[in-house]
């Protein structure tokens, strides 16, 4: 007995070595994760994944708040749901506590950190099968970072510029950088991306991957935006140069409504889209187009769980020319004989491929850049450079108009009238595609246009920038606030 007990006791003490080590078996540890080329590719896939899903909040950047914000805080749409945040956006009674700004902020920064991590780890890794792999991966990261900072600078103006991965909480507490510095970073990133994305060695990651043309078009947009911000002619010239790399390389989709058909995803007119999937995914991998925009009343035989929260203003609906195919493709006013009292937006509903979708979960993608946008941007740049439209400018805008089934613009317009026509054309073309508020700000027409469509809106001159989210200012006291909002 005595011996047994002594033996038992001794055994207890022997088992101590390594007893207190952490035993993590079902989750990766960052320290030993990047061991092969595939791990870097997987990490980049996760970086794209953050565009559609984000762990702490559910849907990713382009899930809903990004594009809803653009058309609600403008003359395009009004809100019928119960969310006070959305109602405030439509009425321009929003403040710095609005969760939509918060969601846009964290949606961008979550991915910026992923891009920073990818750049660092892809630089540290050495056993590539081919230099093309490293280049393309880095190109993906630069594209993502450049694109996201572009979104941030348009929404919020000065933002913290962090081009290194976060390792400690303190290292990420930064002040807001001046707008010019942010733009320099964006341009540098996108120029790198354009080079590095030239060769795509991944056969399974093609459709949905940005290409050098995508980046050229985006650079065009960046310079156009900065040019308008600073009234800088050289930026308009650079914009024109980049856009010319894309002009002629793509064709407009012959029928407007076909752009959004599932069978045309990622091809044709589309330069780059964010890929959602309702049928393959689990949980939040679908977008909210059909849930938010389609009416409830067609739930029986059409889209189920449609809520019809955002609807077009009468001003928008009535602004189209007669015969404009975009009007019939974008809006729906009746279904199976029943008329709605106000029109809804059906642009993203592919009736053939998804006639009735459970829960409104559609496979439809969010189109970030398409050729019609390139043409209209080109015309805008030309108009600015020459202080009036030239032949090429008319040609560009008319391609879009002809495709839409309306008459070409008659010649002889002056700078301002042509510019107004461009703004109007963009409005008709890009409903609910994440453009309107940006366009109104770039064209300098925000207050004027909003009050025309919504006379009771509380729109102010400082609404050309949205407020830095108050939550973020609580956590990072170094952040100042934009003018007009509570400091």
């Amino acid at each position: 007995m005595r011996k047994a007990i002594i033996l038992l006791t001794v055994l207890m003490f022997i088992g101590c070595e390594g007893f207190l080590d952490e035993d993590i078996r079902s989750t990766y540890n960052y320290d030993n994760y990047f061991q092969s080329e595939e791990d870097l590719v997987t990490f980049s896939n996760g970086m794209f994944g953050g565009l559609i899903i984000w762990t702490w909040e559910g849907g990713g950047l382009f899930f809903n708040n990004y594009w809803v914000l653009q058309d609600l805080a403008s003359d395009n749409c009004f809100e019928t749901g119960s969310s006070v945040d959305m109602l405030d956006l439509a009425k321009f009674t929003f403040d710095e506590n609005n969760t939509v700004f918060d969601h846009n902020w964290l949606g961008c920064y979550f991915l910026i950190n992923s891009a920073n991590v990818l750049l660092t780890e892809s630089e540290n890794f050495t056993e590539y099968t081919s230099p093309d792999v490293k280049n393309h991966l880095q190109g993906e990261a630069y594209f993502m970072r450049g694109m996201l900072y572009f979104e941030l600078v348009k929404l919020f103006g000065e933002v913290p510029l962090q081009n290194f991965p976060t390792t400690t909480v303190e290292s990420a507490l930064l002040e807001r950088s001046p707008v010019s510095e942010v733009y320099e970073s964006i341009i540098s990133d996108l120029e790198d991306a354009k080079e590095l994305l030239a060769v795509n060695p991944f056969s399974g990651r093609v459709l949905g991957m940005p290409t050098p043309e995508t980046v050229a078009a985006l650079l065009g947009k960046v310079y156009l935006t900065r040019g308008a911000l600073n009234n800088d002619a050289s930026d308009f010239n650079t914009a024109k140069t980049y856009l010319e790399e894309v002009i002629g390389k793509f064709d407009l989709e012959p029928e407007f409504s076909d752009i959004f058909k599932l069978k045309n995803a990622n091809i044709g007119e589309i330069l780059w889209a964010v890929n959602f999937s309702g049928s393959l995914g689990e949980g939040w991998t679908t977008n909210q187009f059909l849930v938010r925009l389609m009416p409830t009343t067609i739930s029986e035989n059409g889209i189920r769980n449609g809520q019809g929260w955002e609807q077009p203003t009468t001003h928008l609906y009535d602004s189209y020319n007669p015969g404009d195919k975009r009007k019939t493709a974008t809006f729906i006013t009746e279904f199976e004989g029943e008329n709605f009292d106000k029109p809804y937006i059906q642009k993203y509903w592919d009736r053939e491929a998804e006639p009735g979708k459970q829960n409104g979960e559609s496979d439809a993608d969010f189109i970030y850049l398409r050729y019609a946008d390139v043409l209209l941007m080109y015309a805008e740049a030309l108009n600015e450079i020459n202080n009036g439209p030239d032949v090429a400018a008319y040609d560009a805008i008319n391609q879009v108009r002809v495709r839409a089934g309306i008459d070409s613009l008659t010649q002889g317009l002056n700078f301002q009238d042509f510019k107004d026509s461009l703004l109007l054309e963009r409005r008709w073309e890009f409903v609910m595609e994440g453009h309107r508020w940006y366009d109104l700000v770039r064209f300098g027409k925000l207050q004027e246009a909003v009050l025309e469509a919504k006379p009771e809106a509380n729109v102010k001159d400082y609404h050309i920038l949205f407020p830095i989210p108050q939550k973020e200012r609580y956590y990072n006291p170094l952040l100042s606030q934009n003018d007009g909002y509570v400091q």
Partner: protein
Amino acid sequence: MKRKFVVFFLALFSHVLIAQELTLRGIVRDEVNAPLLGVTVTIEGTTQGVITNAEGVFEIQVNPSLVKIVNFSFVGYNTESREIGDGLTYFEIQLIPKYTELDDVVVIGYGTQRRGDVSTAISTVKAEDIASPANISLDQSLQGQAAGVVVSQSTGKPGAPVSIRIRGTTSINGTNEPLYVVDGIPIITKAAELTTGTVQGSAINPLSSINPMDIESIQILKDASAAAMYGARGANGVILITTKRGVAGKLQVNLLASVGVQILARELELLNARELAELGNDAVTEARKYYPDIAYGDNFAFPERFGEGTNWQDEIFRPAWMQNYQLSLRGGSEQTRYFISGNMMFQDGIIEYSDFNKGTFRINLDNDLSKNVRAGVNVNFTNSQSHGVITGVPNQASSVTAMAMLFNPGQEPYDDDGPGGYTYESNTINRIPNPVAEINETDRVISSNRAIGDMYLDWDIIPGLQYKLKLGVDAFLTKEQQYIPSFIRRGQDKGKGYNVNMQGNTWLVENTLSYTKDIDRQHFTLLLGQTMQKYTSEDTDIAIERFDDDRLGYYNLGLGMDKTINTGYHSWSMLSWIGRIMYNYDGRYYLTASGRADGSSKFGNSNKWAFFPSASFAWRVSGEDFFSSVDAINSLKIRASYGTVGNEGIPPGSTISLMGDLPYFFGEQPGSKVLGTYVYSLQNNELKWEVTRQYNTGFDIHFFESRIMLTSEVYLKETSDLLLFVPINRSSGFAYAWSNVGDMSNKGIEFSLNTVNLSGRFQWRSRLNFAVNRNQVTDLAQSTDIYGIPIMNILDWTKISKGKPIGVIYGYKTDGILQLNEDPAEQPFFPSKIIRYGDRKYVDKNNDGEITTDDYYELGNANPDYSFGFHNRFSYKGLALEIYFQGDMGNELVNFNRFQLESFDGYQNNSKVALERWTEENPSNEYPRANASPHGNFMSDVYVEDGSYVRLKQVLLSYSLPVKWYTGAGIENIVISLSGNNLYTFTNYSGYDPEVSIFGGSVYGKGADYGAYPMARTVLFSLNLTF
């Protein structure tokens, strides 16, 4: 060995002892000469014993050569002893009540002490208080039993965990619960370690596995010196539970059966169908003054055609039955003693389709292997099952109580044309799911099988030197299943099923060596020990969506189209070394010093170990010669202690940078899915133990032969390196990070007064507990405040700031309503909004013409000014009445329900106060106008209410049936009782119940009430038989 087993089995089933020669008989009476039932008659030096019957008579057979002294003892009375000699075989004994507890044995960490010798702050709860038939669960047994121990139920859901705080909020990371040690084994009490939490709405209280009727005593270790023995996890106090042991002698059988009913304590007063329709139309009319585009809703057209409508609260609440059955057997021989018990409990919840059922079985065996070696085993099996409904989440799309509060009374629950025969959702702008459909059709269950057991071996190596080996296991298998059919709103038209299995265990091995030595009047005890503990669990989680056919529910998840399958593994381990010296001189001067070193796997390599020392001193003044002339005071002891304890309540892997996964899709539609990864958490190797230093001083004083006993303590707790999962700036790419965020202090006074007011035929005893605690955050590592969880989109209603306590509530002060004769342009308002006639006015604290968070006031504090419990017991012959009041005074609560119940926008139902809203004809200065275009939610004094309450917590009336009614039936005692819990609450709080808070004990949301499961009034009838 084999022989011992044979003896053991014989002893179990027979009452017959070994060969005897002499029969002793006698009768025992009390101080008024009434026969005493249940007096323990033992033979000194043996384990033999019997109990007196209802006549007070006993008979016992002994070997006269072995026996010299007979002892007669009974709880609450002085023990009497008699010598056997000169042929004396018949005893007539009279026992005198004692009121002192000085000789009671108190279980301390790793040992026991005589209560009179205890130098630390320990509260004891005795079996008869725990095992009252009115208590169904262990936590109920603890309420009001000890000063400074606050048991708060944050939900009325059957089987749900409660929150226990000892001496305030010590920690801020959500692990404020004390450590529970059952027969020396720390058991799993965090719900997160037993379930994955996938299935919302059901919860099984980890403490429900312990049956209150199995408990002999509970010791609550309150100060650091007492809790230091559990070092690492003693920061929030330690609750030591000792279960009943077998007793040699005649088999005792105890049977308890209880049946009762629970009813909702109060209903809210809500608008009826017509009133809501009128409100909805008014809201639109009012809003159209400023936004002409707003349309009237069809749902409110022609309000005159509506009447009362549906009372949705009645639809979901119901009176609910509960039953509890208990059987225990206790007996044994000199060598082997056993305690066996079984329990079955069935409790329906007051919300339909919510219930909690469990069965437990326990067997405790003690065996004397030889003169110097004792061994034993305790095993407890529990099977429990809880069907739940979701309540108390800050999202009315899921909580059924919120759904019932807000659903349009103009609609019916059932609709032949609706999916599944139900009305699908409310026809208001805020589309609320149908709570009746949700409750009836959603299936949500957690089942758990759990075994808690331990084995011990005690070996007296040489006199005074004892070795103890203890092995313990707490093993569980939990199943969580949920099915939401496609035709109810939450199923989102596709049906969702979940099936999660989690199994795991925690095991413990403990070696201790103790040495006791007496030299003259000095008494030493030295203890050395080592403990190893490890927890592992694995889970398999299946979530399936898109079912075309709901009929088989979660039993056949293969029918669903979208499958998500995950598995997980979790583990942590701890290693500890303990040393303690206890010294006393002549029972007058006591000194204890201890040290414990703990290592935990959860911290990085440089921070794995921490050391926790403690010391205590006590002086029994009443033992001094100069004190012997003080007659009134029969005992006075002064104590002081200091100790440190730790807290490592973070999940495993918190110091490591973990990765998560996200999918993406490339290719033509629908695309091919690819796997993606991302960085989930930040690394923090610097993370270290949270440490609490506690200073305690107190005294125990007994007057008049312990008829009045007063214990009082004063304490100071300083916690440093508080562990918290703190929100950080998202520009980092992360939302939260674990960090040691700062320091906090708690100081307070407790006292506990026990008095015997009347003794004699009619007895009356009282117990009053009173505690004051003041909490303050003394330092924060970051320069900014830490903000709470946003509720209703309000982020800054509470925050953790330096220099203030946890639980301060911030908001605007209101200043009436803007009337028609006032100028809107003169009124400061939110800069992005425009004030209109009939809107609330707010106080512009800093006079800058704008209402911003700079105008916030401190509106209240969720911590009570003081807490108390007052217990009285009256008894006369066989009849006894116990009345127990409990209360918290001086705390404020935020009633978040009122944001929606007083929205006045027609988006959902409102409470009756909507009838008093401002209109041009009724220019109220308290309630604003109806408005279908609302401004949003702002925290103000409107929503902050006084949460003080005094509750009649328990009334118990019991009657011990007269012996002559059942003599000869072999029954020793029959007691019938009627009890009521939560019978009445005196409070000004307007919500369902002032004790509820949706965040349980979380410090982020302290003091918030949002759609919680209300508490019930319970009435129980019980029958208790002892054989």
